[in-house]
């Protein structure tokens, strides 16, 4: 028995293809990004060590902080706007007797679609002349809005699209958690005379706090990753007001071949994501006791 499943060469053979790819596309890029982030490098000449210059440059660039702020808007929008909506609808779906499956299947649809295609679809909806929104606005006698080219509305329009794509995904996650709560708990509360609202706020929500934590953590991760939706809908415009860290990185690193500077932004994305996750864990998640039932 042990001999058959303890042959070093077999072990190596089975793991090798996986490890080669993993080292090539995860470990090596991570290390090379970290190292070249301290270098001046345009891809043509030899990279030159320049200490913290790239990071200082990012620190003093107002455009970079605008991009960071936009990542922050993504996070704030999901925590304070999306999460309540997600909670409301998953509670609602969990309480209906019929059509649960239909609701669950239907709300999930946008999250399996390509973000790029969703971006195209929504820029059609936001189109100034024949888009849905402006046709509706003019029909009720209001002024049309230049959704994606007005710097006051552009970021908001993107946030709406992003929320539209992912709300259903989280509803399904939270719904699964609600449905896994044993029925007896709810029934006991009904016997004690608790109304639907009291049961939702005093029993269901506290019991699913761990899943809400997961939703918030995934929202943070998603916000740090956001890029394709912005490139497709506004290309960071107008005038850079919708740039996020990732599109800022692409602008410098790939389009203008500032490899060293671009990589320092990549490192900052990684560090900021870790810091936010850690901060959330310390400030919020630790207070949420894990409930076993």
């Amino acid at each position, binding site marked *: 028995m042990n001999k*058959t*499943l*303890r042959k070093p060469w*077999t*072990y190596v053979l*089975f*793991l090798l*293809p*996986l490890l080669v*790819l993993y080292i*090539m*596309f*995860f470990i090596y*890029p991570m290390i*090379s990004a970290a190292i*070249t982030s301290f270098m001046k490098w345009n*891809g043509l000449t030899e990279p030159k060590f320049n200490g913290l210059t790239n990071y200082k440059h990012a620190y003093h660039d107002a455009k970079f902080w605008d991009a960071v702020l936009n990542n922050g808007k993504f996070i704030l929008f999901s925590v304070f706007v999306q999460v309540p909506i997600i909670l409301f*609808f998953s509670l*609602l*779906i969990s309480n*209906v007797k019929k*059509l649960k499956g239909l609701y*669950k299947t239907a*709300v999930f*649809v946008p*999250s*399996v*679609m*390509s*973000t*790029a*295609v969703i*971006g*195209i*679809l929504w820029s*059609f*909806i936001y*189109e100034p002349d*024949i888009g*849905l929104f402006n046709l509706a606005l003019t029909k009720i006698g209001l002024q049309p809005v230049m959704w994606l080219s007005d710097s006051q509305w552009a970021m908001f329009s993107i946030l709406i699209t992003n929320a539209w794509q*992912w709300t259903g*995904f989280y509803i399904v996650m939270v719904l699964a958690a609600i449905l896994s709560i044993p029925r007896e708990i709810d029934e006991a509360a009904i016997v004690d005379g608790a109304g639907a609202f009291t049961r939702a706020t005093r029993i269901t929500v506290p019991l699913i706090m761990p899943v809400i934590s*997961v939703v918030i953590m995934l929202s943070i*991760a998603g916000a*740090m*990753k956001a*890029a*394709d939706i912005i*490139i*497709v809908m506004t290309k960071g415009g107008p005038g850079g007001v919708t740039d996020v860290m*990732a599109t800022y*990185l*692409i602008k410098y*690193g790939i389009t203008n071949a500032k*490899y060293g500077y671009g*990589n320092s932004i*990549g490192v900052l*994305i*990684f560090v900021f*994501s870790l810091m936010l996750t850690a901060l959330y864990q310390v400030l919020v998640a630790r207070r949420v006791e894990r409930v076993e039932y």
Partner: protein
Amino acid sequence: MTMTKNSLKRSIPHIVLFAFLILTLYPFLFVLFSSIKSDNQAIASNPFGFPASFHFENYREAWVNAKISVYFFNSLYISTLCSVVTILFSSMGAYAISRIRYLRISNVMYQAILIGLLIPGNALLLPIFIMLNKMEFFGHAVLGTHMALILPYTAGAIPFTVIILVAFMRSIPGEIEEASVMDGLSAKGIFSKIIMPITVPALVTVFIINFIGNWNEFLMANFFISSDNLRTLPVGMVGFRDIYNTNYAQMSAGIVFSILPVMIIYAVLQKQIIEGLTAGGVKG
């Protein structure tokens, strides 16, 4: 009286939920209707309703003139090939990690691969771009060819795939292997004849999830490939939009082409897709 009050009370949640469903699904319907309208004028005069006349030629024109067919088959073969190779390598690796008796090394490997899930993909976009720029494959530069997508797509799905497969393979009882060893099977034989067939449900799930992920991927496809004939569907669609943004009817037909395959897969395999996506927490 109480009957009607009760049934009203029971239907309010459904009314609210239906409103939410319409909000979620209406954009798709809007595109579907627009795709068979004659032109922008027809869309603008009747944006919400059913088309007055059907113009299916939008589909033919998008498919042929706008080269959606080329992009479609590029996406199809790249997504399929990468998902298959990811699964092949990952199941071999997952087998070694979960079943071959080098537990301490395996544990280190597993933890190392878990780290891959923590790295925001965008942070690696540039170093991978630089690496592919320098890399050559049989004397050809990799950047700008399909290889520049195939390699990172195949590698990128590894952490998620390995984690799902290791979890599944660990749950297979050891007695099955013991019996197979008695029957004279080698480690390779156990893998291909015993473990893989048992793992099929998990393999289907990760295949679908990876396929959809590759099919939808935009950033690398946009920046690693420049030649029009090599583009994948999402990038081709964006290019199409930038050129034909005056013809929304045809553009809608293009959107339908790119959404339809995923819709069909989702209609058939929604259970696996929902489970796989929410379990992995792989949000795009």
